[in-house]
């Protein structure tokens, strides 16, 4: 029982909803997401506050909407940074091989072996503890995984007939890379990028839990989720809603990612 495009449809729907919510959150929210109201703190969901209020009496729905824009923006930029630099490094390293490859991979592995928390701490101190600090820190932390995967793909493709054929036909190395090798990296990269998108949404909350608060000018889902933890017993909704937002976003991105990959993967063309 095949349901063609059904998954893609769900994924598209979820991401569409997210984009609308984020767009709307940037323009209008039911309440001011930063406005404190001590009399209404930790209020359960009600007609006035659909998703309840947090420990400072701030409206959770408004914060989720405002947070959507920030969270998506941070995740997108981080993933883009990691994918672009990682792909360039991986392609180059995998294609040239030899000692250049070895040097690059030595650095790459060194970076991979760094726990994210130390890297984040160091880079946040250098870049400044703000939104862009976290993007740069996490972007650099995820770059080596991309580089490694791309390099692996390049290595496994190098000896294939069609690459050899391209060379025999007199195509330049750069052309061969762009025309034949890069498209083959898209599939594993889509998978990695969609996972990374999720990691970034969550990385922020894990850092926050360990005492390394990532300072939000505006609320983000990640730090809403981390901040809700002490109130698990008294105000379940504080954690459930941001958690649900993250889950659904991830699901949407995964499903849509699959669909996009199927369209882009050269081997898939004309197969279905």
């Amino acid at each position: 029982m095949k349901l063609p495009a059904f998954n893609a449809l769900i994924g598209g729907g979820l991401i569409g909803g997210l984009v609308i919510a984020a767009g709307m959150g940037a323009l209008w929210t039911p309440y001011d997401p930063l406005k404190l109201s001590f009399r209404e703190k930790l209020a359960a969901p009600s007609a006035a506050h659909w998703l309840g209020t947090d420990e400072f009496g701030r409206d959770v729905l408004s914060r989720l909407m405002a947070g959507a824009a920030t969270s998506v923006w941070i995740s997108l930029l981080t993933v883009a940074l990691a994918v672009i630099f990682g792909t360039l490094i991986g392609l180059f390293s995998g294609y040239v091989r030899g000692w250049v490859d070895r040097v690059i991979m030595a650095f790459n592995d060194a970076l991979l072996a760094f726990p994210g928390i130390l890297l984040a701490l160091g880079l946040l101190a250098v870049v400044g503890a703000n939104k862009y600090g976290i993007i740069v820190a996490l972007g650099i932390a995820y770059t080596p995984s991309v580089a490694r995967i791309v390099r692996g793909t390049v290595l496994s493709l190098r000896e294939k007939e069609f690459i050899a054929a391209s060379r025999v036909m007199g195509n330049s190395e750069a052309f061969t890379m762009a025309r034949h090798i890069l498209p083959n990296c898209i599939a594993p990269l889509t998978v990695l990028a969609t996972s990374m998108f999720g990691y970034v949404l969550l990385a922020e909350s894990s850092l926050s839990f360990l005492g390394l608060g990532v300072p939000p000018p505006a609320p983000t889902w990640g730090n809403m989720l981390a901040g809700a933890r002490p109130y698990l017993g008294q105000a379940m909704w504080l954690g459930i809603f941001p958690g649900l937002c993250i889950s659904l976003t991830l699901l949407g991105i995964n499903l849509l990612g699959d669909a996009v990959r199927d369209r882009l993967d050269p081997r898939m063309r004309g197969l279905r």
Partner: protein
Amino acid sequence: MLRFALTRIVMAIPTLLIVAVSVFVLIRLIPGDPASLMLGDLATPASIADLRARLGLDQSLFTQFGIWFGNLLKGDLGISINSQEPILPLILSRFWVSAQIVLVAVFFASLVAVPAGVIAAWRQDSILDLGLVGAATLLLSIPTFWLGLLLLLFFGLKLEWLPVVGYVSIGDDPWRGIIYLIMPILTLFLHEIGVILRMARASTLEVLRLDYITHARAKGLSEGAVLWRHAFKNAFGPTWTLIGLVLGNLLGGIAVVETVFTIPGLGRLLVDSIFARDYPVIQGCMLFVAFCYVLVNLVIDLCYPIFDPRVTAQ
């Protein structure tokens, strides 16, 4: 094969050197000072200066590195600023604790997630696929500090099956030791299922599209045989690489689970040392983690040809 292994080990030396130097520099760039952290806000500038001198922190960065590196070559990682303990035994004992959790969790997660991923790929776009991907995504998107707490409240407080706090070393009391490790392992296991399932599914999807699968199908092999003999075996290669990455990352990232379940592991040691700016411990931990990482990936690469005949070790 042997030559490959040796080359890789030699190749790892520059990586470790890079880690050693960059950790040394990076942690000293980060604001914060172990002496003033130890003495707190009551300390006088004179006593901070005294302590810095005693810890050797008043010397130039170059001298400090020289001393540390010289001792490192002799196999001495120094002693902790905070606890005055020798670092190597400290790291080894903490590592053993973390490794138990990580290895067991990842092993079981792979046992469940790899077949599930293959099945999801085989039945791509079906309700089953959607269900598996949905479950994996859900597991992936619950942070471990939430998941751990939920398990703690459910198994520890509600059902009273498992102890809520404490830790007993398996070496001291095997049975009780295992009991204390169940929840941390379960937390990590559930989380890693999400990670590995998605990767296994993606790798299998790749393979299922390749020509030889079409060939195999055309030859009239049953779907089950195609799946097992060709798809599964070939999909395992990339998944195997990923498991290597997962293992390497987890050693650094297990701190959260150790915090929730009061486990004295390596992750927590590293995080505590970072917060206390215990420079020699951070350096030792990082070097050790990097070493493990290199080792794990070497083993993974050595095993790779077994799963993927197309790659020859060289």
